[in-house]
């Protein structure tokens, strides 16, 4: 029995927090559907089924109470976040697999909610990315093709034919390939004329502002991530504007805004101290920019998050705040 106060109910509990985050994703989901077709909705469903199914299965194996843990909606949120990271045309079984790996390997293997050192959605994403790299390029070439795939495919009943004619590179892909082919940044950007990525960034941003205003996320991590991407980009741009994409390009494309608000802020795997969060966020941003600019993967966000996840214990240990009444450190 509880013997010490407080005797007031908290203003929000874990399930409400998770649901609010899912709700905040809504504008982004709508814009995604508009730009990339209905595929994303199917991915969401597959990932959620995978995530919830794996979580339930393992909870049962471990003899845990299903309803309270599934009822905290953390697995659902993992599924949703993962679904939003995957290309809309990914085969259904791969999405299902990614979803189940996310909660099974990314979370339950470490002991369940609160115990996982890595962001579960990123674990699922990276596992698929590493084992099935070709699939991760299945982005529709444009908005028209995005809606033209037969429904049977999304339902898992048909095959995807003539892949090359249908799929297109993401702007980040295009930038990387273009720069490798000795094109200048300006030339590559000119090719990306039908680029509506900024719309999506704005939609994610709206959700983020709403979460922040409601006190469901704190500003430190998202702002630090954005700074971590923008700062090196600005410097590099100043040094060689032809060979390095602009800060604006980095901020508006790929997972930057989405990841800063919805992925990096995953409390379980993030740093917990105020100063630590700034370092953690900045580290993610910086690494993302480094991987994008010099690495082999077009978008390094998932790797950056997981690398910083590993550093959290060190960051936390070195950023313990000064306690009330403690001598100011000089």
């Amino acid at each position: 029995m509880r013997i010490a106060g407080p005797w007031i109910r908290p203003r929000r509990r874990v399930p409400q927090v998770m649901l609010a985050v899912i709700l905040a994703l809504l504008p982004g989901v709508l814009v995604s559907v508009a730009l990339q077709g209905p595929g994303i909705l199917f991915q969401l469903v597959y990932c959620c089924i995978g995530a919830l199914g794996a979580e339930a299965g393992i909870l049962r194996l471990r003899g845990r109470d299903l309803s309270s843990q599934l009822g905290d909606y953390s697995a659902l949120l993992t599924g949703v976040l993962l679904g939003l990271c995957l290309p809309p045309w990914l085969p259904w079984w791969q999405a299902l697999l990614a979803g189940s790996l996310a909660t099974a390997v990314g979370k339950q293997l470490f002991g369940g909610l609160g115990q996982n050192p890595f962001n579960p959605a990123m674990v699922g994403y990276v596992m698929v990315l590493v084992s099935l790299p070709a699939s991760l390029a299945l982005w529709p070439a444009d908005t028209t093709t995005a809606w033209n795939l037969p429904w049977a495919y999304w339902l898992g009943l048909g095959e995807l034919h003539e892949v090359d004619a249908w799929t297109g590179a993401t702007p980040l892909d295009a930038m990387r390939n273009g720069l490798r082919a000795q094109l200048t940044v300006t030339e590559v950007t000119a090719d990306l004329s039908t680029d509506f990525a900024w719309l999506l960034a704005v939609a994610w941003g709206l959700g983020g502002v709403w979460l922040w205003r409601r006190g469901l996320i704190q500003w430190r991590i998202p702002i630090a991530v954005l700074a971590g991407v923008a700062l090196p980009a600005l410097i590099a741009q100043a040094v060689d504007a032809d060979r390095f994409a602009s800060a604006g390009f980095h901020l508006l494309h790929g997972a930057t805004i989405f990841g800063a608000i919805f992925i990096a802020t995953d409390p379980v795997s993030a740093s917990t101290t105020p100063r630590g969060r700034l370092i953690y966020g900045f580290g993610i941003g910086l690494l993302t920019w480094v991987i994008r600019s010099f690495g082999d993967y077009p978008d390094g966000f998932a790797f950056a998050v997981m690398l910083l996840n590993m550093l959290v214990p060190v960051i936390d240990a070195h950023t313990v705040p000064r306690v009330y009444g403690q001598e100011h450190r000089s």
Partner: protein
Amino acid sequence: MLNAQHDFRGGLALAGNKLYGEQAATCAAPLPRHLWIPLHQHQGPPAVPCVQPGQHVLRGDLIAKASTSASVAVHASSSGWVRAIESRDLDQGRSVDCILLETDQQDQARDEALGPCYTDPDATAAETIIERIAAAGIVGLGGASFPSATKLRAGVDRPTLEHIILNGAECEPYISCDGASMLEDAAAIIRGGQWLLAASGAQRLSIAIEDHHQAAIDSVNQALKRSADARIQLVQVPSRYPQGGERQLIQSLTGLEVPLDGLPLDLGLAMFNVATAVAVKQALEESQPLTERIVTVTGTAIAQPRNWRVRLGTPISELIAASGGLTHPDPAPRLLMGGAMMGVVLPDKDVPVSKGFNCLLVGPPSDIQPAAASRACIRCGDCVEVCPAGLLPQQLYWHSQAREFQAAAKLHLDACIECGACAVVCPSEIPLVQYYRYAKAELANAAVERRKAEHAKARYAAREKRLQREHAEREAARQRKQAALLQAEQTAAAKPADATSAAVAAALAKARAQQAKAKQALPPAVKAAQERARRQREHNSGSDN
């Protein structure tokens, strides 16, 4: 009037929940037939009763004396007969001896119960004022119940005490007794403040009130204008929990932090509750000891929540009845002493009101008690944001839960003021404060054990040393004796001419010869036995190897 120039870290806005507002005037609670007046209603050792069962006393009569300088006196809260000294449960697991007083319903007060009345703080010696405050049994009425005279004495010992703060910043939602005090007794608060200034030699006094408390601010402000005392100022502080916490309020007012293991006195500050100031005024100007206090009786299960002026020793059942009884059909409503944040559970309705009893909060368990099941910590850090002590509550929790108490201590668990801000924002509904109390208790236990072990070790070391010393002394004595003997022989040999020496030498020689003869004269049986014993010894030592 001033606004606080500084702010404390963390904290959170809580809904006011002053159910009974500051509207209706505080009334005297009905005088019950029986009062259970606790002997231990303060920090420090319990008071010692000085009345006999059957004795008739008047209100204000001393019924228990302070046992030490850190203890305080207890007085009869009304007139009547002392019936018994009985033990009662005050709060969880704390059973306290109480003097059972059967009231005669005359409520006669002893005139000048504490001696002559004083009128002018500046014409009264500081020591006289402090003595009077001690004699009146005054403790801090904010809840902590620290003896006020002890606090003042500590201040007098340090010539640096320069600033007194009267705390009118009510910390908790639901509690409004200090608010009532400020509304109705503003003049007495200021008067009490002047007595405290005179007692401490401080030059400045601030009365801190939360800014949402406009009526109290107006009332104190007017009284302040009438008093025209330039040493006293009113300071408005933001309404943010736990603003009324001693350390937080000090930070708001001065921008200074009380050192981690120090006291406000180290900054030249002393803090008293506003109601304490009223009690000080009554003790000096009316010669009346502390026999009543204002108690907020509130909660969703109370029919007519309100503030009562309550005689110490009144059982809470009487207060509930006076407040219209319970609205909730639940047979076992949750009874809390203190507010919704830091309140403690009371065992039953028999608990008597004591000096530190500021608020009775009653609610159905479903209303007051959060859901029992907590979820895993999701490390969201909400608790870090609100902690006014600048701690990492979730790490303290992880360590406490894992029984890594030393690790928690290293993260300054001792700086936790148990305000509960972290627990109230925790989306996993983890009873964090409970873990901290547990860890603190374990650390205290460990410290006691360590001290015991150290004592034992010290005792052992002392004994070893003593044995060694004794051994060394014996050895030295033996050597001295041997040396003396040797010298005697040498002198005897060197100076045969000396008659006495010669005589000694002769005697010695004779003795030796006799000994040798005795050895030879041993009967054969004895010799054989000696030989057997020797062999046996050799055999034994051989088999040992």
